[in-house]
């Protein structure tokens, strides 16, 4: 026995506490309830352990005065999160349980996730609930919740020096609170006066510049004027195979040029001017960090980044994948690639590919980003012990397939370039095909390779122009951000952290500054941003936020300098509040106007292009007079009177396919009964057939 009393282990989540206790215990750990919280008791050798869990952050920062309408607020203190209005239920009871358990403890181990947030959670519990044990507690560091990794982590646990991560985490929380609470209060109060009612209008430190990226793009989209162009393509027939090639000057900027080309080439013979082929080696992708995983999951399954994060954390807590909140794209050889692959090979869907890989030299590709605390995201080799939900199974498969792919050899692709001359005109076709799939085979359905076959043809060969076509096309406007591409932009600009970026995006959606999967900025979002841009430009400044991130990173490394950083945050915010306060009336009017329009006429749902005017969008809108919902065209003010009634009960969701009878959009109506499909067109022939 190592002295009197037991070792109290603090974990971040209840599932982690259970896994830690099972991994460390000589026999089966016993569980008991303390203050409504499950804790585990176990014996390891001669040492007695008690393992307890937080539920994420149980402490948070708040304003000691706690007066909703008062600003500025520059003093912050740490409280149990449920005491300051956070929705984390039971934090106080968990804290009470840990406090009671700490009385009998002789040693403390912080076993929260090893990153800034985990360090902050552990630090706060050890400081506030355990009576100032943050300096003497040992730190268990692990990247997976497998038995081997946990046992090693506890064998190697040691006391922390500097507490840089925790200090940086606490500073970030305090700075973000000062930033958020002051801006929220000044904006909400300004908006309340003209509107005569309270509505939270807020902007966080990371949300400001992120909203800026979206508003810049939205401005470009809303001001976009398309330009006509003509795509000219010719269809050729060679060796019984028909293929299409595009004019080398396509798209053409003038209609007359396109027409002249069509007239010149129609019914003519073409001559193959050149036919070149080259092979290209395509290397395997790099291992996943969280940003890459979020982007790939969005591409493959359409998961928003916040959903991917939630699922990945669940898989981590099931010990199926390694710690997901990592920026690392590096897989250290110490993971034991061969043993890991052999364990994964027990799953029959991967066994064949793994057998092949085991016959090769196991050297993974590595990315440029390296994180000392955690390796890149990888499967642990453990087989799922429960039936995974569909989304979980998809994400797990993606992680496994990516892990296999990084060991694969280069893929070999052939790129062909064919140019056919027709008189003075020339048409080009570019073909691509995979000669050796290499790593693509192991990445399976997630490999994105375009296969375009080019017919067997040789230079000088004469071929007939079967058809020639000129099609008027208009430029596409600027692309909207998807959640994944926005995340990528945030990463590139070093805004936020890998752990918080997805939450910042979600907050913009929750605040109605942005709507839908297409990340369309609402009038309210534009108004809030423009107001801040005019009166408090630092709030939306990318440089300022990026600078703060760099300084927080310096705190992480050195474990000092946080007081000066907070002082500077206070100075910045104070200066911004002066500008906002002086313009409160103008600020309130513009926000209230945008808020009113987004509340009174919310763009609830877009169902599709209006079949009457062909340019507007049919949307579900609510009548200001009657409060009833109906379908109306966005071009109503320009004269389109297309409208249709809707059922007033239940929820309505758009359906991607239009009505097969009339082409109008369809909706799915969900009530307590079985959901049903409805064509919104009152004059739809299908309704007459059914006798509606």
């Amino acid at each position, binding site marked *: 026995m190592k002295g009197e009393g037991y070792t109290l282990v603090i974990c971040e989540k209840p599932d982690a506490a259970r896994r830690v206790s099972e991994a460390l215990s000589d026999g089966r750990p016993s569980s008991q309830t303390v203050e409504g919280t499950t804790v585990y008791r176990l014996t390891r050798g001669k040492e007695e352990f008690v393992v307890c869990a937080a539920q994420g952050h149980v402490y948070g920062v708040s304003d000691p005065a706690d007066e909703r309408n008062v600003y500025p607020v520059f003093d912050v203190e740490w409280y149990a999160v449920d005491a300051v209005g956070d929705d984390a239920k039971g934090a106080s009871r968990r804290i009470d349980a840990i406090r009671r358990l700490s009385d009998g403890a002789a040693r403390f181990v912080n076993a929260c996730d090893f990153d800034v947030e985990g360090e902050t959670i552990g630090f706060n519990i050890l400081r506030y609930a355990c009576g100032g044990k943050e300096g003497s507690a040992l730190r268990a560091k692990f990247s997976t919740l497998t038995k081997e990794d946990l046992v090693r982590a506890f064998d190697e646990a040691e006391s922390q020096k500097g507490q840089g991560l925790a200090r940086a985490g606490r500073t970030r929380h305090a700075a973000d609170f000062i930033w958020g609470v002051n801006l929220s209060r000044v904006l909400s109060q300004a908006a309340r006066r003209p509107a005569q009612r309270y509505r939270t209008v807020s902007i966080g430190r990371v949300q400001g510049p992120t909203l800026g990226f979206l508003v810049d793009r939205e401005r*470009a989209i809303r001001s976009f004027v398309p330009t006509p162009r003509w795509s000219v393509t010719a269809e050729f027939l060679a060796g019984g195979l028909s293929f299409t090639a595009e004019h080398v000057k396509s798209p053409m900027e003038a209609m007359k040029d396109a027409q002249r080309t069509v007239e010149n080439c129609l019914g003519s013979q073409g001559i193959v001017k050149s036919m070149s082929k080259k092979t290209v080696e395509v290397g395997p992708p790099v291992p996943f960090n969280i940003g890459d995983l979020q982007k790939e999951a969005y591409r493959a399954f359409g998961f928003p980044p916040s959903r991917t994060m939630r699922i990945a954390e669940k898989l981590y807590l099931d010990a199926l994948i390694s710690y997901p909140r990592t920026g690392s794209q590096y897989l250290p050889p110490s993971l034991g690639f061969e043993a890991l692959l052999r364990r994964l090979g027990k799953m029959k869907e991967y066994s064949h590919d793994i057998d092949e890989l085991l016959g090769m030299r196991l050297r993974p590709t590595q990315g440029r980003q390296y994180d000392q605390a955690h390796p890149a995201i990888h499967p642990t080799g453990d087989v799922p012990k429960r039936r995974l939900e569909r989304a979980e199974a998809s994400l797990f498969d993606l992680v496994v397939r990516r892990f296999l792919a990084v060991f694969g050899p280069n893929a070999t692709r052939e790129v062909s370039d064919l140019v056919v001359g027709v008189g003075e005109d020339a048409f080009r076709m570019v073909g691509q095909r995979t000669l050796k799939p290499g790593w693509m085979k192991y990445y399976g359905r997630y490999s994105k390779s375009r296969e375009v076959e080019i017919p067997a043809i040789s230079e000088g060969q004469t071929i007939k122009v079967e058809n020639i076509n000129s099609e008027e096309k208009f430029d596409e406007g600027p692309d909207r951000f998807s959640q994944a591409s926005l995340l990528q932009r945030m990463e590139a600009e070093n805004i936020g952290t890998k752990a918080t970026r997805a939450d910042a995006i979600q907050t913009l959606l929750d605040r109605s500054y942005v709507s839908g999967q297409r990340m369309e900025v609402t009038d309210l979002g534009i108004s809030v941003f423009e107001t801040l841009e005019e009166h408090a430009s630092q709030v939306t400044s990318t440089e300022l936020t990026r600078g703060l991130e760099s300084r927080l990173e310096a705190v992480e490394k050195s474990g000092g300098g946080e007081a000066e950083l907070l002082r500077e945050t206070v100075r910045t915010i104070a200066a911004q509040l002066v500008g906002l306060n002086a313009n409160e009336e103008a600020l309130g009017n513009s926000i209230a106007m945008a808020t009113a329009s987004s509340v009174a006429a919310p763009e609830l749902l877009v169902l599709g292009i209006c079949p009457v005017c062909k340019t507007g969008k049919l949307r579900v809108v609510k009548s200001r007079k009657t409060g009833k919902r109906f379908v109306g065209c966005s071009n109503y003010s320009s004269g389109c009177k297309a409208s249709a009634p809707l059922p007033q009960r239940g929820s309505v969701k758009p359906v991607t396919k239009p009505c097969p009878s009339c082409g109008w959009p369809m909706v799915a109506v969900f009530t307590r009964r079985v959901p049903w499909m409805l064509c919104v067109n009152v004059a739809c022939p299908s309704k007459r057939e059914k006798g509606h």
Partner: protein
Amino acid sequence: MKCLVCGVETKAELCGNHRKAKDALEAAYPRWTRAYGEMDWRAFLDNVKRNPRTGQWARETAGFLEGI
């Protein structure tokens, strides 16, 4: 004064957003005349207004300019 298109308080005839949309329309007009050979300003505005790819502010501004 108020923006003649959207009614937002502004210091000029058009707010910043509709001013930029007007600039975009004026920049696009020569491209359209080059594309179709000839096209008068009103026909251009009408075409732009009906085009589903046109942005919301550009469409609103085209409608406003058409009515002048």
